[in-house]
């Protein structure tokens, strides 16, 4: 099913060329006027004289071979342009994911198992942080930690691995803030729900020590919905990363996507969109697999939303 989504998404991305007012050439050139040789090259490259579906098919074949077209602005292969930036985005998303998983799940488990001060404060904090968009978090973090405290740089990529980590810390947190809240909440709710289930009573009634009951019956069972929400959240990071990259002037795919959209470089936008949607689908597939592994009642692909 997800593969079909991918196909349809690629179709939409391709079809965008025709949705624009004017002809495909205008869309590809972003409304710029082109010399006739360029027009001719475009016509050949995109097979614009062939029937629509054939155009799509040929384009798709090119894509699968790694040929994503050429940027109208920079006159370079889109694939090269993407490759040089993809690690920035990947690194950022990875860093943010780790934060979300460690802090979000950790907080959720702790407040799910205990009642009282920790629990209430978790609820309040998550309610607020869920509403903080990444770019607002970004400017607050820049203000506090970059300008006032000077612990982290306010923008840029950094040069070496360690310097990268340093530069990516604030962006990663900005990206993680609002997603963290929902992961923490769902974790807390699942842990609470599982702890109240009857099979936990059975384990207690047979004298299983509390710690083992919690680990093997509560957390293990709660892992199912937690995996789902974590997966969905991480997948959504892929798109939101663009906002954070722009806010922190990071040289990633997202920032480049936005810049290309502004300058109407359609080929680049198409290429990056494809990469992002594919990444999104891949993450969802991984979540599906993990879900089927964790819940023996469910067959592959049976994950209910």
């Amino acid at each position: 099913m997800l593969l079909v989504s991918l196909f349809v998404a690629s179709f939409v991305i391709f079809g965008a060329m025709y949705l624009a007012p004017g002809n495909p050439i205008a869309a590809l050139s972003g409304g710029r006027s082109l010399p006739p040789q360029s027009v001719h090259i475009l016509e050949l490259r995109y097979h614009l004289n062939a029937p629509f579906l054939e155009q799509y098919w040929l384009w798709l074949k090119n894509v699968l071979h790694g040929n994503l077209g050429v940027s109208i602005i920079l006159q370079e292969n889109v694939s090269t342009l993407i490759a040089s930036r993809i690690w920035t985005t990947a690194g950022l998303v990875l860093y943010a994911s780790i934060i979300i998983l460690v802090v979000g799940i950790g907080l959720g488990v702790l407040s799910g198992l205990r009642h009282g001060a920790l629990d209430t404060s978790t609820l309040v904090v998550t309610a607020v942080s869920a509403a903080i968009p990444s770019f607002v978090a970004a400017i607050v973090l820049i203000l506090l930690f970059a300008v006032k405290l000077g612990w982290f740089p306010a923008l840029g990529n950094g040069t070496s691995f360690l310097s990268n980590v340093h530069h990516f810390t604030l962006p990663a947190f900005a990206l993680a803030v609002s997603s963290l809240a929902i992961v923490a909440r769902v974790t807390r709710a699942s842990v609470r729900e599982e702890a109240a289930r009857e099979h936990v009573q059975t384990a207690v009634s047979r004298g299983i020590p509390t710690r083992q009951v919690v680990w093997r019956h509560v957390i293990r069972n709660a892992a199912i919905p937690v995996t789902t929400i974590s997966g969905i959240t991480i997948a959504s990071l892929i798109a939101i990363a663009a906002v954070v990259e722009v806010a922190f002037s990071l040289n990633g795919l997202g920032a480049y996507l936005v810049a290309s959209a502004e300058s109407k470089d359609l080929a680049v936008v198409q290429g990056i969109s494809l990469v992002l949607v594919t990444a999104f689908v891949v993450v969802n597939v991984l979540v599906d697999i993990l879900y089927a592994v964790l819940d023996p009642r469910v067959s592959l692909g049976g994950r209910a939303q």
Partner: protein
Amino acid sequence: MSVAAAVPEEATRRRSVWSLLTSTGPVGMAAAAVIAVATFVAVFGSLLAPYDPDLSNLSLSWVAPTGGHLLGFDGQGRDLLSRLLAGARTSMLGPLGVVVICMVAGTLLAVTAAWRRGAVDAAISSGLDIMFAFPGILLAVLAATVFGAGLLAAAVALAIAYTPYVARVLRGAALKERSQQYVAALEVQGVSATSICMRHLVPNMMPLIVAQSTILFGYAMVDLAAISFLGLGVQPPAPDWGVMISENQSGIVQGYPLSALLPGLCIVLVVVAFNVLGERLFEQAQAARQ
């Protein structure tokens, strides 16, 4: 079991808006109040603004609050308070459009799928599943590339991206409602499908629809502000909150954070209010359906 015979369910259970609100408790009411204020400002903002939000005086850029200018000036020397008040309009209008389109489309799809069931349901559900793969922001970026940057393109793109999610949630409720006994009773009486759906099914799903709309508004607001922040939604120099953050971000490193922070604060406040109210309405809707 109790001797009292099962009372035939009311075909339509309506509830006044006020009672729905009060049932969300003091926190919910507080959130509703915030939303009411925000709506008021959105509608009357330009009239309330003490100064012209677009009047720029570069010699006054980044000046701190003084005299009649309660919040000072932004990077372009415009009165910050006036811009905040005026900005509420686009910041709230965009999400409203998204929610309206989404809920109408989502309800239609959900009710159709639930009513017809079988092949129609399978087709609609598969169609919705397929659309899940497209993150909203990405679709908005694509729309901006093709149609040019602007609020309308972004709002429509977001609405399209959200509809599968909304339709999914509503379909579940519609299916449940469909299998209630009163529906069968009405069908047997010869009432038309459209009539049953419009006059009974949908009104009974209202608590859920309202709750979902409220939550959705929050998400739409965040996403649209992000798109405007990126420069692909509302365009500068319009006083949209997302745009204002982007315009004034440079002020932070220069030591003038207020004009970037305050629009952010406005967004967070309103979104929190919508989230909080929406969650409580959702709980009420769930409770009512048990």
